[in-house]
């Protein structure tokens, strides 16, 4: 017996989700970064009570508002896609995702909606202290929102705190704390938020540099550049620190993803880090992945072949062994359903016990060949290098700017200011490359080891997914063009410093 499903349905559904998430992610990092920066600027105003800093804060707040207004609710489309294109997945994870997404909705709506109004309307209506608190609470609200979204995302990368219930066919939450504070969630949150801070800082520095190059708003631009540079440098180091933590976590929980980042086919105890082409740093990958000088980092072939020693002293299983366990889990699930239907509770209990033993490999039952377990290596290899390389470039930019600000020689290096302007699009490329690493790197899994994307997708018409894909492409492109136009108009007009 052989049946089939159109592979293009999976590809189009994935493409649509990727398109929506990536467009949504154009707006979010700037909200996170600018939110923190205007909080700092207003704090300076609160301390100094100098009207210059109030007007400076108000200008960046205006750009924050433009980005916030255009970006708000674009993430909701992702939730529509869950129900329509990924209905199997949505059913299976409903119990896990319900709590974090509900908290995110409540926090985002109440915290941001309340305090953002005070932030924009309250300059002359509330006390400076209350206004400052509202600004910080708006930024904090956006950051908390990101936390809960990333908790849900991290659970897909490292599913913990749940138990599969074969009666409801759902993963049910048994420990909220394990899910909310899983190591994957913590590092993903820190790294994602710090990348958002970097985006905000590069944006502020780039726009300020443009004013300096044009000879406009010198005092305003210098002050903004100072805040942006100092905060950007802090954000870069924080992103490096959280990125390092993320590397260790990925090495432990998703070794195939790490091996794909590095294009590492055969592992070793002294694995080098490939910079690009033949340029390698000896032993560097081992150190970055394990924080030890000698430790085995498995390559793609090692992970497929198994047999190497894991952290807990056990031997890694081969792809074929995992696929066999996956099929056994599926057979136990079938036996459970049949026994349950027949009312044979003893047989159902035995089948459930067998299912639970093999459940960690359930998704492998869908895998037909070991090649399916390898994500697209060239895309990941280069995306990782683009992310890290651009991150390094921003460190150099901020260090150089800080040095010149301290030495008061900023205007003698117009090329650096031009470079800062050019970094605005680059920081978005850096951020998007990071998402490609995180999401493409976990393929073929929708939920790591438990559910491949091929089993998560709904059996709907490919044509309907194609239509909505192009509708979204149009909608988001219009939104992006509108945002850029309004933003450029506001920047050209400049701040009202009188």
């Amino acid at each position: 017996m052989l049946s089939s499903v159109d592979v293009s349905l999976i590809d189009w559904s994935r493409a649509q989700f990727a398109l929506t998430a990536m467009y949504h992610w154009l707006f979010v990092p700037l909200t996170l970064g600018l939110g923190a920066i205007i909080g700092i600027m207003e704090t300076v105003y609160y301390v100094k009570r100098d009207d210059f800093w109030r007007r400076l804060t108000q200008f960046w707040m205006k750009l924050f508002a433009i980005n916030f207004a255009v970006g708000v609710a674009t993430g909701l489309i992702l939730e529509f896609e869950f129900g329509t294109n990924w209905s199997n997945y949505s059913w299976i994870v409903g119990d896990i995702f319900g709590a974090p997404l509900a908290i995110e909705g409540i926090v985002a709506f109440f915290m941001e909606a309340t305090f953002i109004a005070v932030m924009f309307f309250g300059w002359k209506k509330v006390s400076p202290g209350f206004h400052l608190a509202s600004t910080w609470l708006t930024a904090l609200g956006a950051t908390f929102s990101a936390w809960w979204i990333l908790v849900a995302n991290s659970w897909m990368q490292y599913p913990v705190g749940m138990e599969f219930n074969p009666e409801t066919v759902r993963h049910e939450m048994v420990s909220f704390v394990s899910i909310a504070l899983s190591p994957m969630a913590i590092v993903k949150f820190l790294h994602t938020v710090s990348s958002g801070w970097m985006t905000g800082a590069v944006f502020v520095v780039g726009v300020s540099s443009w004013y300096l190059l044009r000879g406009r708003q010198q005092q305003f631009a210098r002050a903004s550049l100072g805040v942006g540079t100092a905060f950007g440098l802090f954000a870069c180091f924080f992103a490096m620190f959280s990125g390092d933590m993320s590397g260790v976590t990925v090495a432990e929980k998703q070794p195939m993803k790490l091996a794909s980042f590095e294009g590492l086919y055969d592992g070793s105890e002294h694995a080098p880090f490939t910079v690009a082409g033949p340029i390698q740093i000896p032993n560097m990958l081992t150190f970055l992945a394990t924080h030890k000088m000698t430790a085995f980092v498995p390559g793609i072939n090692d992970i497929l072949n198994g047999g190497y020693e894991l952290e807990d002293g056990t031997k890694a299983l081969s792809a074929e062994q995992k696929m066999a366990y996956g099929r056994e889990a599926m057979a136990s699930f079938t036996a459970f359903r049949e026994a349950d239907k027949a009312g044979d509770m003893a047989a159902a209990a035995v089948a459930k016990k067998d299912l639970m033993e093999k459940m960690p490999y359930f998704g492998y039952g869908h895998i037909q060949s070991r090649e399916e377990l390898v994500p697209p290596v060239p895309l990941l290899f280069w995306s990782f290098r683009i992310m890290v390389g651009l991150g390094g470039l921003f460190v150099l930019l901020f260090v150089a700017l800080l040095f010149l600000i301290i030495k008061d020689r900023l205007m003698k290096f117009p090329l650096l200011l031009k470079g800062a302007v050019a970094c605005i699009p680059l920081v978005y490329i850096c951020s998007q490359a990071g998402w490609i690493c995180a999401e493409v790197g976990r393929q073929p899994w929708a939920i790591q080891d438990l559910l491949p994307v091929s089993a998560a997708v709904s059996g709907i018409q490919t044509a309907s997914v194609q239509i909505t894909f192009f509708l979204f492409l149009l909608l988001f492109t219009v939104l992006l063009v509108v945002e850029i136009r309004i933003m450029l108009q506001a920047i050209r007009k400049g701040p009202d410093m009188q």
Partner: protein
Amino acid sequence: MYWLTKVFRFYCDGFRSMTIGRTLWIIIIVKLVIIFVLLRIFFFRPAMSHLSPQEKQNHVADELLQPKSGLLNESSGQIHVVPIH
């Protein structure tokens, strides 16, 4: 009641004094109409909304027990689904 009036006035005055904010509100409203009316009603009906919870369970279980690989059959553009039993 006093507080409610105060909050109401706060928002009213705020909206009245907006400059660029008016354009942004138009963008937000048009976008929400597109998302919730056009997309949600006409294009994004939940795929299993017509099923009861019991039927949803059975449907998803059936789907989970029908392995679908991601390998492309070059001749047909279809992926083969090989039952495990």
